[in-house]
């Protein structure tokens, strides 16, 4: 088999290259341990590439490390964000719990100090059309709540009364700000009896206050107990304005002491405390 010219050239080049390599190698061997001229020359010729490669390798290494660091930082960032969100949620829950605890403590204090037997209830809803009209609580007939049971706030201010229908575990409260509500009241300073009714907008008005009676602004309004529904002496609110009219009665506006649309807990007065009530007769159930 004859060799082509190209193959011969290739083989010749291979031979030349290998001989050159061997010369280069042998040129270094006698001076091994000492830098030879050839070594220095080749090293000098290749040093820029070496530097470039070292810089390139260093850059790639740095970039890779930076990338890894960024990834770790990103993961850590995500973890910390999750932790912050969890902590915020817990803080919100704690604040809510604290608020509820304060309210419940207030309810308990009132329940202990009052001469009435009260049933604490949670406000579960309000009138969809006018929140100043009625609200719904989570206690009903099974807890002793009946029609006309007075309802007060945790602070002991009048809220309204239970109206029908009363379900075993839900009841409707007619607020004192309802236009159809009527409460027998007494003005604390002038000792004038009147009837308090709602105006439907969060305020109340007093009816049947004679023009001759002096009603001071900021005068306290308490329940009179004459209506046989609400107990006597429960604080309702303060007079905000009063003025004579063309009729024989004054026009008096009252601001309730409690913001009725912001209530979360209420107390339903379901009776007097056992020691204050008359001894129960056989057949009667304990309140």
């Amino acid at each position: 088999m004859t060799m082509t010219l190209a193959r011969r050239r290739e083989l010749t080049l291979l031979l030349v290259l290998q001989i050159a390599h061997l010369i280069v190698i042998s040129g270094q061997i006698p001076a091994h341990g000492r830098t030879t001229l050839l070594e220095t020359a080749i090293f000098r010729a290749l040093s820029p590439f070496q530097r470039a490669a070292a810089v390139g390798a260093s850059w790639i290494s740095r970039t890779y490390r930076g990338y890894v660091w960024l990834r770790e930082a990103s993961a850590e960032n995500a973890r910390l964000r999750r932790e912050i969100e969890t902590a915020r949620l817990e803080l919100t829950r704690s604040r809510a719990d604290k608020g509820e605890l304060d309210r419940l403590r207030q309810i308990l204090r009132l329940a202990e100090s009052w001469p009435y037997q009260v049933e604490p209830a949670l406000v579960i809803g309000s009138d969809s059309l006018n929140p100043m009209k009625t609200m719904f609580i989570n206690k009903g007939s099974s807890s002793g709540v009946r029609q006309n049971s007075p309802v007060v706030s945790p602070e002991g201010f009048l809220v309204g009364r239970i109206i029908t229908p009363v379900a075993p575990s839900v009841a409707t409260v007619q607020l004192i700000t309802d236009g159809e509500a009527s409460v027998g009241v007494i003005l604390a300073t002038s000792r004038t009896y009147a009837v308090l009714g709602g105006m439907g907008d969060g305020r109340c008005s007093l009816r049947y206050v004679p023009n001759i009676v002096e009603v001071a602004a900021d005068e306290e309004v308490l329940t009179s107990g004459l209506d046989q529904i609400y107990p006597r002496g429960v604080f309702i609110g303060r007079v905000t304005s009063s003025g004579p009219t063309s009729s024989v009665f004054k026009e008096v506006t009252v601001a309730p002491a409690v913001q009725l649309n912001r209530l979360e807990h209420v107390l339903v007065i379901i009776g007097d405390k056992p020691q204050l009530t008359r001894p129960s007769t056989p057949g009667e159930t304990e309140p």
Partner: protein
Amino acid sequence: MSFLGVVSGLVIGLVAQVLLGRLWSHVHQYLNPLTLVVIILALRGSPTAGMLSGSIAGFMQDAFSAQVLGVSSVGKTLVGYAVGAVNARFIVRSTVFLVPLIFFASAVEVAISILLDRILEISPVLYPRSILTVSAGNALAGTVFIKITERFKNRRNSAASIARLGERTSI
């Protein structure tokens, strides 16, 4: 194979070798990127391109590893030529041939280096067992690299053909 392609390939191989050596000091026992580059250049080009790139790659490797200059060039030049010659006669594309070819070529290169180290009484960098490990590593990495680049190339060619066909139909 263009001159620029040869130079780029060698530079990439050198950077890969330096970088891998920094990341893992024992990498030279399992992989020799410069030998791999020489084999790939020989497969893509001619025996002349293979042996020239082998010679340059050998010098580069020795310069960067405090070796006696030229020791690595002998094996790489021979391997570059041999792979180029084999590829010129039988076009090697199948994995079944690629793996043993790269394995065998790498084994020869490592064996020559070890032999020269012993003859010249140079403290060895590679040991007889390295013949197996470097060859296996090179065969695996080289085959994967070639297959991936071929797939990219085929995809690019297909896209170009579709584009040309689209131009013709629109005319």
